């Protein structure tokens, strides 16, 4: 140990002025750091806010997109139900001159116009009780012919189409189902309480036409058979 050296070094001390300067400069630095921390938290909070908003927006868009896709799928399913034959019919129509356009039901003024539109002959009832008058001529889905006859109390709908099957669109359950041979065709007649509502049949030849007669309020059996018998060229 050097006593003289120690005594000399002991005289080197931090003055009050220097201490004040140190405390002032460090206090400013501490204050700046606090401010920086606060602004970092502020920016972090803002950034998190923006991220949350963007996430919410993306989620919203995704949910909306999925919702629309699902709805579209449901709509497509519904359209499939209606349009299972539509595609075939439209294809046929296209082959026959593209007559359907955007409408699935085409109403025409006369049988002649319908024949001209279709481009081929088709059978129509030659007999209906006097009170029934032809009210509407329609071509549905480009190939299903529908003639509506109305009386004051009833409505008879005749349908024909170049397909094999039940084209009546009447899927009610009736008490009685009978098979009758009319015009060399096997006709299914459906009735309840002796009122005949529906007759459906197909040609027994290569033309593969199907037909239906549908009375909304029912007719007697003779009338039903007589109407069906009258449907011939």
């Amino acid at each position: 140990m050097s006593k003289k050296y120690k005594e000399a070094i002991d005289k080197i001390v931090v003055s009050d002025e220097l201490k004040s300067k140190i405390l002032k400069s460090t206090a400013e630095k501490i204050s700046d750091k606090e401010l920086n921390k606060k602004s970092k938290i502020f920016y972090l909070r803002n950034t998190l806010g923006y991220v949350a908003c963007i996430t919410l927006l993306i989620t919203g868009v995704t949910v909306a997109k999925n919702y629309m896709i699902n709805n579209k799928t449901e709509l497509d399913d519904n359209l499939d139900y209606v349009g299972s034959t539509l595609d075939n019919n439209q294809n046929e129509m296209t082959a026959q001159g593209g007559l359907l356009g955007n409408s699935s039901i085409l109403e025409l003024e006369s049988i002649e116009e319908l024949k001209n539109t279709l481009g081929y002959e088709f059978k129509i009832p030659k007999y209906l009780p006097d009170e029934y008058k032809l009210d509407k001529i329609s071509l549905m889905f480009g190939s299903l012919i529908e003639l509506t006859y109305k009386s004051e109390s009833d409505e008879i709908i005749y349908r024909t189409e170049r397909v094999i099957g039940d084209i009546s669109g009447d899927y009610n359950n009736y008490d009685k189902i009978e098979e009758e041979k009319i015009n060399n065709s096997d006709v299914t007649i459906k009735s309840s309480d002796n009122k005949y509502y529906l007759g459906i049949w197909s040609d027994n030849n290569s033309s593969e036409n199907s037909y239906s007669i549908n009375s909304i309020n029912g007719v007697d059996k003779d009338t039903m058979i007589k109407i069906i018998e009258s449907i011939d060229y």
Partner: protein
Amino acid sequence: MHITTEYISSLVDKYGNMILRVAYTYLKNKADAEDIVQDVFLKIVEKEPIFNDENHEKSWLIRTTINMCKNKINLFWNKNKCSIDDLIEFGINDKYNIDTNVLQSVMNLPEKYRIVIYMYYYEGYSSSEIAKIIGKTDTTIRSLLHRARNKLKDILKEEYDFE
């Protein structure tokens, strides 16, 4: 650790003189040494170091002071390439008014001897402790102490009391 002005004030009271003495021993300039003291405390605020104990705290402060002195010297020489006369004119000769032959003799030794003399004879560190703090080997520190003592013996003659 949360740094407060109260904590800094307590550190200045406890270690301020030591930091100033290390810096002055290194730089031989009062104003520069005082700047270093300020810078060391600002570094504490900036880094918020966590100390295991008082020894760790003290050695960290000495090491930081020495590093900052070295940086200041390097910066000075890189920016100001001038003659010794210029340095005196610009106040490089700013010293504490301590008129003792012993201190003058120590301060006239090269920097590598001055700092080991200070740490060994004033702070009371062993050669191995000094080696750890300033990042040299124990043998180097012993060698430096030996050479410093021999030089001081030659200079101080009868005044020499470093034992």
